[in-house]
């Protein structure tokens, strides 16, 4: 009797760990072991199939001597910062507007959310036409009488990446809005009322009281959006196919082309490692601070 209690106690102690173990093992293999494999390939001479030899940092040297990779890295930073900033800002604005006891809120919410639901393989085509100077916005405005109006970013190598940003913002803002809206709904109305009684206007209340209270929502939005930004892949392929020239190349498209189209698996793996290191440099400190906070009993 005593023994069985002790056994069940011990089981109860170990059960949580046992339950977590399969997930941990699977992730260790499917994430970390595979990263290690990629790291190994990046040090090998692999071209069409994996080759398990060792050539040192040759592939990294080759990678960084490729002009297209430099474009890809620059684009990643332009794209990510603009995408994160605009999506967060616009999402917050939409959430605040929607939170003003609006009629037809449900319909508007659906309108802002639907782009997430559609595959970019085809919405990319629609955007391609809209942004095309001879077919889309520019033509419509020109036909309406403003003939000097020019909006041809998509054909300008220097500006095409901003078109990608526009389409990406369009696709993901609804999600940010939903999270912010949720955050706003979670805020006690009495806080706002109290401030209003003291004579503060709505803009001031939002700026100084409500937005700071949304900090957790901001964190969720940024984690989820960074995930989307890193994965931006079919977006590029469908909208610009990395053109004009290779002006909208991104690390994910670079890696894909190197590995699967150009028979440079080693270079592809090296670019994947560079991407992972960048992500780790940004995400690991964030995770660390987040988790430390929890440990402190937050």
């Amino acid at each position: 009797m005593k023994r069985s209690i002790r056994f069940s106690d011990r089981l109860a102690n170990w059960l949580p760990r046992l339950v977590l173990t399969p997930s941990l093992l699977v992730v260790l293999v499917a994430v970390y072991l595979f990263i290690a494999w990629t790291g190994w390939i990046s040090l090998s001479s692999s071209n069409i199939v994996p080759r398990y030899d060792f050539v040192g940092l040759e592939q990294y040297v080759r990678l960084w001597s490729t002009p297209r990779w430099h474009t890809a890295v620059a684009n990643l930073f332009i794209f990510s910062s603009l995408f994160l900033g605009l999506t967060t800002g616009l999402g917050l604005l939409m959430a605040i507007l929607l939170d003003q006891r609006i009629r037809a809120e449900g319909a508007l919410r659906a309108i802002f959310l639907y782009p997430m639901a559609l595959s970019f393989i085809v919405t990319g085509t629609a955007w391609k036409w809209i942004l095309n100077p001879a077919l889309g916005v520019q033509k419509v405005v020109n036909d309406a009488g403003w003939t000097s109006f020019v909006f041809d970013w998509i054909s300008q190598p220097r500006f095409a990446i901003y078109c990608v940003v526009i389409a990406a913002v369009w696709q993901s803002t609804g999600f940010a809005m939903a999270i912010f809206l949720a955050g706003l709904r979670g805020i006690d109305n009495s806080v706002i009322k109290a401030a209003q009684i003291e004579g503060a206007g709505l803009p001031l209340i939002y700026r100084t009281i409500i937005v700071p209270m949304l900090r957790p929502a901001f964190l969720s939005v940024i984690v989820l959006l960074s995930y989307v930004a890193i994965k931006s892949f079919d977006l590029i392929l469908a909208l610009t196919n990395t053109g004009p020239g290779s002006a909208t190349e991104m690390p994910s498209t670079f890696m894909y082309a190197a590995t699967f189209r150009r028979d440079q698996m080693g270079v592809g793996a090296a670019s994947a490692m560079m991407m992972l290191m960048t992500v780790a440099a940004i995400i690991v400190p964030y995770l660390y601070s987040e988790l430390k906070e929890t440990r402190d009993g937050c």
Partner: protein
Amino acid sequence: MAANVRSRHRQHATGRALIYGGLLCLAAFYLMPLWVIITTSVKHLDEIYAGSFIGLPKEITFDAWRSAWSEACNGTACKGLKPYFINSLIMVVPAVILSTGIGAINGYVITKWRFPGSNFIFGILLFGCFLPFQAVILPMAQTLGFLGLAGTLAGLVLVHTVYGIAFTTLFFRNYFVGVPDELVKAAQIDGAGFMRIFVSIMLPTALPIIVVSCIWQFTQIWNDYLFGVSFTAGENAPITVALNNVVNVSMGRKEYNVDMAAAMIAGLPTLIVYIVAGRYFVRGLTAGAVKG
């Protein structure tokens, strides 16, 4: 006094006008691509090639929709998107249920049964969110081949479940952090065990976050192309792979109207999920997912 009220009224009215104006402008911007997609899908192909990419159709036809659903060719198999739609359904349901279930129990352990290192394990799981999937395709293919699951829908379900765990665990962990520990302690005193507490206390409170997790996973898995094209073949392909084949023709003419209709058909389940469950989505997020 009266003047003051009136001016406040006016201020209020202009404020409301601004809010509605802003929202309507945004809505118009958001609907623009949908407008292009839908008008194109009901145009005749010749009309499109004559230069009418944007604008109203001269004549409305639903041929493209019929063709996309039951006739469009994916290689030599001209059965439309229907069979692949069914493949996707067969694949997405178990993948969503499995990944959400695993995420729920992981979140429960990490928040309510903390043990030394549990936070570290959470961090390890979470980093998986940020893995560029293009990098893991080949080793994953080798693993699936080793498991005998290469080219099957079961293999695809496994892959989606594995890479879904990171996000679902994050969702549930953030939700369960907000559930008071006392609830669990009280149940323990009443003699409830690990599983009992999970099933009869945690899960019922977790309904909103289950909705969020399911919607997120459903969208991600349904719209995935990369894994689909890598780990299935031919008749087992999910709808995104078939859609890509309908849309991406190399040395032949593009049937834009069929493409657009096909895209709408492929997106319909997620659209429905967003429209029907959209309210619960925001409610679920409100209830906890944003506690970061």
